[in-house]
């Protein structure tokens, strides 16, 4: 009896199912039988056909049948499954490569930079696009291509910036800025809108938004943390201190020279020669400092202004413009050699070497132009004053020693 009633309505149920968006024939058969069983069970409990059918139909929900078909077809799609496997593989591979790179970097093994770069490239060019394509395909309701594309661009740019930084390539700053810009004006608003749309469907999860905002803050901080306000202030204070020391030393030097002239000291020629050379070096430094300040503000900034207008990456601009190092370091090395030749006392020679430490290859390797590319102006300014102080002290030590030598 019940079976007959259902059988009379089978065609109608089939049409209803197809109208709901289910077209894959093998699934239609499954769902049709499933629905009929539900109706049958309800009718056995005494409900009418219409009531039972309505209940069964409501339990399906509007979106469930297209979703069912979509998921089934994706599971059966070998190409999609292969792509999914490849995505997992690439994700795993990049993670392993990055881990090796991180260990290598930590242990100072060779090849760390290449490993990290390779790992990030696998993510940018392999894993990430595949992952977004796979998740995009698996979505059923209201697909939007904008979201995955913006997400891809954001992550790709930020990771590319990381590659540039690891490899010390120029333009890292620009890539970082572009990445952060896309993140802030593209991804974040989209994400929040998306989250609220989901929230309206009852899948509220404000934790994700907070998490995202924290993530943004961390990324933004990461790129600025190297030179916080305190570090910049320390450089400024030390630079000011150095300048007063230079002033004091130069005053003492002048006193010695005056006295040498007055007494017609026998080393007067040597003293004056040294002083001329040192003065020349100090002039070079002053010129470099002027250019340094002018690079921040064309009208020539004060140290205080400089501190406010400082920016990371200024080092490169200034070094390129000022030609810091090459000419200067050549002259400074000549100065050092002259001093150590003229002065006999070994302890004084050692002192001179120490004051002119910046002419040594280790110092140059660690603090030379290659290393200050990402330094802020104030740090480079400080280094200049440090070098200037070293020259003044070396000069002082050398001429004092010459004065005492008799």
């Amino acid at each position, binding site marked *: 009896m019940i*079976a*007959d009633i*259902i*059988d009379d309505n*089978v*065609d109608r149920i*089939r049409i209803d199912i197809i109208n709901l968006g289910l077209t894959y024939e*093998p*699934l239609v*058969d*499954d*769902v*049709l*039988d*499933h629905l*009929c*069983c*539900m109706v049958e069970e309800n009718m056995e409990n005494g409900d009418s056909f219409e009531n039972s059918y309505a209940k069964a139909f409501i339990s399906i929900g509007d979106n*469930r049948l297209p*979703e*069912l078909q979509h*998921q*089934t077809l994706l*599971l*059966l799609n070998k190409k999609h499954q292969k792509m999914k496997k490849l995505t997992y593989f690439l994700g795993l591979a990049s993670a392993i490569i990055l881990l090796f790179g991180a260990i290598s970097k930590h242990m100072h093994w060779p090849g760390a930079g290449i490993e990290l770069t390779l790992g990030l490239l696998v993510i940018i060019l392999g894993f990430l696009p595949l992952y977004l394509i796979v998740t995009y395909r698996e979505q059923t309701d209201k697909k939007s291509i904008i979201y995955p594309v913006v997400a891809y661009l954001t992550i790709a740019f930020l990771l590319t910036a990381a590659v540039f930084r690891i490899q010390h390539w120029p333009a890292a700053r620009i890539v970082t800025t572009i990445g952060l810009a896309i993140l802030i004006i593209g991804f974040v608003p989209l994400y929040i809108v998306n989250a609220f749309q989901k929230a309206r469907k009852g899948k509220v999860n404000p934790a994700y938004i907070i998490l995202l905002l924290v993530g943004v803050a961390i990324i933004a901080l990461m790129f600025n943390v190297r030179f916080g306000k305190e570090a910049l202030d320390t450089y400024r204070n030390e630079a000011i201190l150095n300048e007063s020391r230079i002033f004091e030393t130069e005053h003492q030097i002048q006193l010695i020279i005056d006295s040498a002239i007055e007494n017609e000291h026998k080393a007067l020629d040597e003293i004056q020669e040294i002083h001329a050379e040192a003065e020349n070096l100090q002039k070079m430094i002053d010129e470099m400092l002027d250019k340094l300040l002018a690079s921040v503000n064309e009208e020539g900034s004060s140290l205080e202004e400089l501190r406010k207008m400082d920016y990371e990456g200024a080092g490169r601009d200034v070094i390129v413009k000022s030609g810091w190092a090459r000419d200067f370091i050549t002259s400074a090395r000549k100065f050092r050699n002259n001093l150590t030749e003229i002065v006999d006392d070994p302890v004084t020679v050692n002192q001179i070497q120490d004051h002119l430490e910046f002419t040594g290859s280790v110092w140059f390797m660690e603090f030379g132009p290659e290393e200050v590319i990402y330094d802020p102006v104030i740090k480079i300014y400080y280094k200049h004053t440090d070098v200037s102080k070293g020259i003044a002290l070396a000069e002082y030590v050398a001429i004092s020693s010459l004065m005492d030598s008799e």
Partner: protein
Amino acid sequence: MIANDLLKGTLRTIVLKLLADNRRMYGYEITKKVEELSDGKIVLTFGALYPVLHKLEADGHIKTDIEYIGKRVRKYYTLTEVGRSWAERKVDEFFDFVNTLTYVLKPTPA
């Protein structure tokens, strides 16, 4: 009710085990059986069940026999030979997993 994300990975094993114990079953029967065995704690929606059944069929682990119930078709799912040994392995694997999990999650004596 057991949360959906807990069920996700085990659905295939549940279906395989049921088919190993019951020779042949149709979709609705599987959902009912699972509900009965789990005391109503596990409710398989057809949205979760049929993709798994079709995937298992495509991979050659199960096959279908068709029977007509009036005008409609009922598909009975049966394990293939390959599917049978695979089902045993999967169930063993699962028990192994549950034992490990029990060990990991059991309260440690103070």
